[in-house]
């Protein structure tokens, strides 16, 4: 049995990401700890996706350090991510999950059972043999969640997984995220949907122009935002 939160805390220490003259994230110091889901909010271009890619280890910072459970340069063995537009492998839904299980080192004898469990978790058991790329957008997102969970992650990063989904599909994905949160898996999710943030968040990290504007418990953030930028964002004003 894995040690829970073996990759936690994820610590950002003075992290800056720059592309040429453009600073995408600016001197970020932040920590993701075990517990309720952390929601990253902020307008487009605020650096949410870049932060998630850094946290996953897909991107190296220009300056600063990132550590996972106290280790730097740790292989992403217990981390998983679902991208905003996940890429389905050209095979069936079930085969996509079995691929991830094999990549995670799950013994062959266990793969069929685990695959069935994951498909059931995301409500796709009836579509196991369907070509993954033929699934609807919402079904693909749920399949991507199941594929990410095949890695038995301690921390799961989600990059606006409901951004292009209708309310029904959004609810289905959010239900899975809630279920995941109850399985001792830390969820760190980006969204620019404040309603979704209210529904799912335990903690809020608000980004604007590559900086952390405010980080607080969700109730405190929504009830009494401490910064002008957060108040403006919650009031629905355009942050530029």
């Amino acid at each position, binding site marked *: 049995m894995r040690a829970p939160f073996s990759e936690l805390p994820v610590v950002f220490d003075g992290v800056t990401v720059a592309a040429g003259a453009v600073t995408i994230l600016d001197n970020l110091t932040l920590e993701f700890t075990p517990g309720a889901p952390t929601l990253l909010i902020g307008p487009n271009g605020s650096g949410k996706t870049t932060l998630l890619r850094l946290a996953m280890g*897909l991107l190296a910072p220009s300056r600063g350090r990132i550590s996972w459970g106290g280790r730097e340069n740790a292989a992403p063995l217990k981390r*998983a991510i679902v991208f905003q537009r996940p890429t389905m*492998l*050209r*095979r069936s839904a079930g085969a996509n999950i079995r*691929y*991830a299980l094999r*990549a995670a080192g799950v013994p062959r004898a266990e793969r069929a059972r685990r695959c069935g469990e994951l498909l059931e978790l995301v409500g796709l058991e009836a579509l196991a043999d369907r070509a993954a790329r033929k699934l609807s957008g919402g079904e693909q997102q749920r399949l991507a969640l199941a594929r990410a969970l095949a890695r038995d992650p301690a921390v799961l990063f989600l990059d606006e997984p409901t951004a292009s989904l209708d309310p029904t599909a959004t609810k289905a994905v959010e239900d899975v995220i809630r279920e995941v949160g109850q399985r001792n898996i830390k969820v760190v999710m980006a969204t620019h949907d404040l309603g979704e943030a209210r529904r799912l968040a335990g903690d809020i990290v608000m980004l604007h122009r590559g900086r952390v504007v405010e980080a607080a418990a969700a109730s405190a953030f929504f009830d009494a935002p401490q910064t002008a930028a957060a108040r403006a964002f919650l009031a629905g004003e355009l942050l530029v």
Partner: protein
Amino acid sequence: MPDDVSALHLVLSGDAALFAIVRLSLYVSLSAVLLAAMIGIPFGAFLALTRFPGRQGVIVGLNALMGLPPVVVGLAVYLALSRSGPLGSFGLLFTPRAMIIAQTILVAPIIAALARQTIEDLWIEYRDELTAMNIGPLGRVATLVWDARFSLVTALLAGFGRAAAEVGAIIIVGGNIEGFTRTMTTAIALETSKGDLPLAVGLGMVLIAIVIAVNALAWTARRAGERWAG
């Protein structure tokens, strides 16, 4: 009897000489495509997934090799396999194996260049997911080749088209020996020069039919595969 009617009669009557030539042609061309695929697909994948100084030059060179003149390849293989050549001791000159070697050299760059492009396009799509799943280099190659398999059929078809239509290289290294190294293309060239047009036309009809049949089969397999795998 007009030449085209005589040719049709030869084909429909199952003329033994004609079909021996057809069998050898298929053996040589398909063997060359198989060998070229074994070389070209891994090399294309390597080029698609790695970055090293001079890579662009290698890609430009590989693309240029798609237009290798068959007679030049035939000459080079002839020199290599002739008695005084570095591989002369193997005694391969004027054998079907020599023809397979020459055609493999012609076809491998085509398959490698097309495979490189196909796999690189898919890698751009898959990079984040495979990296996030911590898939190693060999696993990446295996995944990309497998998932690109229906697109790679096009590369194999292009290679087969080149091999099946080729005459310049195999006539030099095979010698067009009747019953031993005579293929459809070399026979067509010879019979036309001799004025035996029915056999030349008959072989031409069979050659075109084979190329159409192989392409139709591959297209059907690709469509079915894409429907199944997405």
